[in-house]
C-alpha cells in the first residue's frame, strides 16, 4: 500500500525542512516530498492538515522487559505503547532475564519484534557479562547480531579499569557505550533526591553529586581513550555543566534526558508517591532549569523516556520497597511539546532530539524524510487534549506519575516502514 500524506507541516531537521507539503511513500520508502503532489492511483491519502509530519520518533532508552519479565511488559505491549506515543523505533535495555549479553537473546528480541512487534526494536547489549560488572560481554558478537549500543543501564560499571577497557574495546568494534552514571557509595540506601523534601519526608536521600561524579569519571575515561560515550538519563545541574564543558573541549560525549527530569521535581514524591520514585531520582528546581538550559543550548542531544514498566504489586507498597521507574512512552511527546510552548526549544530542535539525533548517535539510518530512506513517519496532532488514564495506556504497566492529568498534543498517526501502525 502506498501513502500520500497531504498538507501536513513537514518538519525534518535533518534536511532543514519546515514547510506545509505532501509526503509520498512507496514500498515502505520515502518517494518524494513536495507541494501539491498528485495522488497516484493506488495510494491511500492521509489528510494531515493541522498536523506535524515528522521523521518517526526514536526512543533510545526503554525497558521492554522481554524476555523474562513479561508480567511487566513484553515486546508486543511495549511496542504498542511506543507507537501510541508516536515512536517508530525503540532501543531496549539489556536488564532482561536473561540479560542481553549473548546472540541468542538478541536474536530472540529481534525476531519477536519483527513477527509480533509494531515498531522497530533495536536491542542494547550489556557492557559486562550478565551485567555483573566483572568481565566484558562478547561485544563483537552483540554488535554482529544486531545490538546498536552497549550499556549496563540500571547500574554503573563500578570498576573504572573495566569501564575504560570497555570503551576502548567498543570503539574498536564501532559500537557506542551508554553510561549509567551513578556513584553507588554515595547512593547507599537512598530512595529519593537528597534535599529539603527528603528531610521533611524522612526518606534517605541520594545526593546529586552521586550522578555528577560518575558522569565526570566516564567523560574522563572517554576523553582519555578517545572513545565516544553517551550519558543516559541526565538529571542534575552538575552533570549538564560537566557535559557542556566536555563538549567544548571536544570530548566525544552525547547525552539524553527524560521528560520527567524537565517536568517534575522531587516535590512529586510528597505523599510518598511511588510513581515519583525513579533512578536517578527527581531533582530540584535548579536542576530542572539546568536540564532545560542544556536542551536549549544543545548540551543535551536527545530526549529518551527511560520507559520502565513495573507491576502494580511492585509500586503499591511502602516507599522504600517500591521499584524505581515509570512508564513514559505514551506521555513523552506531549510533555516534550510543552518545551516548545514554553519557548525552551524550537519545534525543529525538539524533533531533532526525538528522532534525528538518536538515529545519528546509534547509526540507525533513520530520523530523516529524505527520498529513498525508510518511511518511518509520525503525524503529530499538537492540539489534541487527552487525559492519562490507566486503563487506556497500551503498556501493560500503569506506573505513571501523570495518571489523571490532561495532556496536550500526541501522535495522530504512526507509520513504520510505510505501514500505518497506530491511528488516534
Amino acid at each position, binding site marked *: 500500500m502506498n501513502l500520500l500524506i497531504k498538507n501536513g507541516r513537514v518538519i525534518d531537521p535533518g534536511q532543514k525542512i519546515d514547510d506545509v507539503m505532501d509526503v509520498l511513500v512507496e514500498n515502505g520508502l520515502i518517494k518524494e516530498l513536495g507541494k501539491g503532489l498528485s495522488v497516484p492511483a493506488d495510494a491511500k491519502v492521509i489528510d494531515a492538515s493541522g498536523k506535524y509530519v515528522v521523521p518517526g520518533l526514536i526512543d533510545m532508552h526503554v525497558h521492554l522487559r522481554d524476555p523474562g519479565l513479561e508480567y511487566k511488559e513484553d515486546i508486543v505491549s511495549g511496542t504498542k505503547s511506543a507507537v501510541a506515543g508516536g515512536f517508530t523505533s525503540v532501543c531496549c535495555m539489556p536488564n532482561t532475564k536473561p540479560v542481553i549479553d549473548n546472540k541468542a537473546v538478541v536474536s530472540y528480541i529481534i525476531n519477536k519484534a519483527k513477527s509480533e512487534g509494531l515498531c522497530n526494536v533495536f536491542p542494547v547489549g550489556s557492557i559486562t557479562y550478565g551485567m555483573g560488572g566483572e568481565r566484558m560481554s562478547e561485544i563483537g558478537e552483540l554488535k554482529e547480531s544486531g545490538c546498536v549500543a552497549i550499556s549496563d543501564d540500571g547500574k554503573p560499571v563500578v570498576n573504572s579499569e573495566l569501564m575504560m577497557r570497555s570503551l576502548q574495546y567498543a570503539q574498536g568494534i564501532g559500537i557506542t557505550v551508554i553510561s549509567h552514571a551513578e556513584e553507588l557509595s554515595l547512593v547507599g540506601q537512598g530512595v529519593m533526591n*537528597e*534535599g*529539603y523534601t*527528603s*528531610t*521533611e*519526608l*524522612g*526518606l*534517605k*536521600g541520594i545526593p546529586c553529586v552521586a550522578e555528577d561524579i560518575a558522569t565526570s569519571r566516564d567523560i574522563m575515561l572517554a576523553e582519555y581513550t578517545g572513545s565516544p560515550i553517551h550519558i543516559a538519563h541526565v538529571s542534575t545541574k552538575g552533570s549538564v555543566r560537566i557535559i557542556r564543558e566536555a563538549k567544548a573541549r571536544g570530548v566525544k560525549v552525547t547525552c539524553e534526558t527524560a521528560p520527567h527530569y524537565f517536568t517534575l521535581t522531587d516535590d512529586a514524591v510528597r*505523599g*510518598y508517591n511511588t510513581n515519583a520514585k525513579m533512578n536517578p531520582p527527581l531533582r530540584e528546581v535548579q536542576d530542572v532549569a539546568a536540564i532545560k538550559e542544556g536542551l536549549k543550548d544543545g548540551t543535551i542531544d536527545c530526549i529518551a523516556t527511560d520507559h520502565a514498566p513495573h507491576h502494580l*504489586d511492585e509500586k*503499591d*507498597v*511502602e*516507599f*522504600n*520497597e517500591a521499584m524505581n521507574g515509570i512508564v513514559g512512552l505514551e506521555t513523552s511527546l506531549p510533555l516534550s511539546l510543552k518545551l516548545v510552548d514554553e519557548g525552551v526549544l524550537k519545534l525543529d530542535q525538539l524533533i531533532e532530539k526525538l528522532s534525528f539525533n538518536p538515529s545519528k548517535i546509534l547509526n540507525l539510518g533513520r530520523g530523516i524524510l529524505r527520498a529513498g530512506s525508510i518511511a518511518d513517519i509520525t503525524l503529530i496532532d499538537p492540539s489534541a487534549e487527552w487525559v492519562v488514564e490507566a486503563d487506556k495506556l497500551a503498556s501493560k504497566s500503569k506506573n505513571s506519575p501523570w495518571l489523571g492529568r490532561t495532556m496536550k498534543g500526541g501522535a495522530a498517526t504512526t507509520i513504520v516502514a510505510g505501514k500505518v501502525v497506530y491511528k488516534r
Partner: protein
Amino acid sequence: MAEFKHKHIIALRDLSKEDMELLLSTAESMREINSRDIKKVPTLRGKTIINLFYESSTRTRTSFEIAGKRLSADTVNIAPSNSSATKGETLADTALNLLAMKPDIIVMRHAVSGSHYFLANKINCSIINAGDGAHEHPSQGLLDMLTMKDRFGRLDGLKVAIVGDITHSRVARSNIQGLTKMGSKIYVAGPPTMLPPGVEKLGDVTVCSSMNEALEDADVVMMLRIQQERQGKTLMPNTREYSRYFGLNPNNIKLAKPNAMIMHPGPINRGVEMSSYVIDGDQSWILKQVENGVAVRMAMLYHVCGGELE
C-alpha cells in the same frame, strides 16, 4: 468546644495547634486515672487495638498497651518478623488480614517513612503512628510537649535545644513540627553529617555551629540517641569523639538557663550523648517523659476513636 476531627494520627505536621492543645489537655485529665488505685476507665470498652510493631520497642509498645488497657480496650500485640518480605507477606496483606478481625485502631511502628499513609489508603480503621523511619513519632512529640508544659506552664517562647543526629531522628522531626506550631524556638546542633539539608525550613529552627551555641540560655535541652549501628561508620569517627563534642555533661549544661530541663526520648546510651551525672541529676525530666507517655497515648486513642474519616 474544640473537636478532634482526625481519624488517624500519623504526623504532627498534619495536626493544627488546636488539635495538639486538645490532645495535651485531654492527656492532663488522663493523668489522674494513672494515679488511682484502680487505674481503669470503661471508655473504650469493646474496642480492639492492635499494636503492630515491625521494629522492636519495649517502651513505646508497652506504653501504648497500658494506655489502651487503662481505657478498657482490648489490646493485642503483634511483632511480625523483622523482614516480612522473607515471609512473603506484604504490609498491605498483613494489615488487610488484621483488618478482617475488625480492630478499631492499629498502632504501628514501621521502619519505612510514610508507611502509615500507605496503609491509611487501604484500610478503614484508625491508624496511630508509633514511629515511621526517620519521619515522625507523634506520640513522643506530644509527650515531650506535655512534659515541657508541666515544667513551664507554656510552650510559647521556649528555647528548645535539640542535639544529636537530626537526620535520622523521627523524634526531632515531630518535636520540630509540634513545637513550632506551639510557638517555641528550636535550636539544633550536631555534627554536620547529622544535620539534614533544609532542616532550618522544617519549622522555627536555627542551625547552630556548635553545641554550646545551642545550649546557651536554653529552657529545654533535648538529647537524641546515638548508636554506632544506626549512624553507621561514615557519620562520625566513634562515640568517644562524639561525646567530647556533642555529649551533655555537668559543665556544658551550665550554659543553659539555671534549672533548664533535660530530656531524652530513650533508650539512653549512658556516657555517649549524656553523662550519668546529667541523666540522674536534678534537671533531668526523663522519667517524667515516660510517665507522661501513657497519658498522652490514652488521649490519642480516645480522640481517634471519635475522629471522622478524612
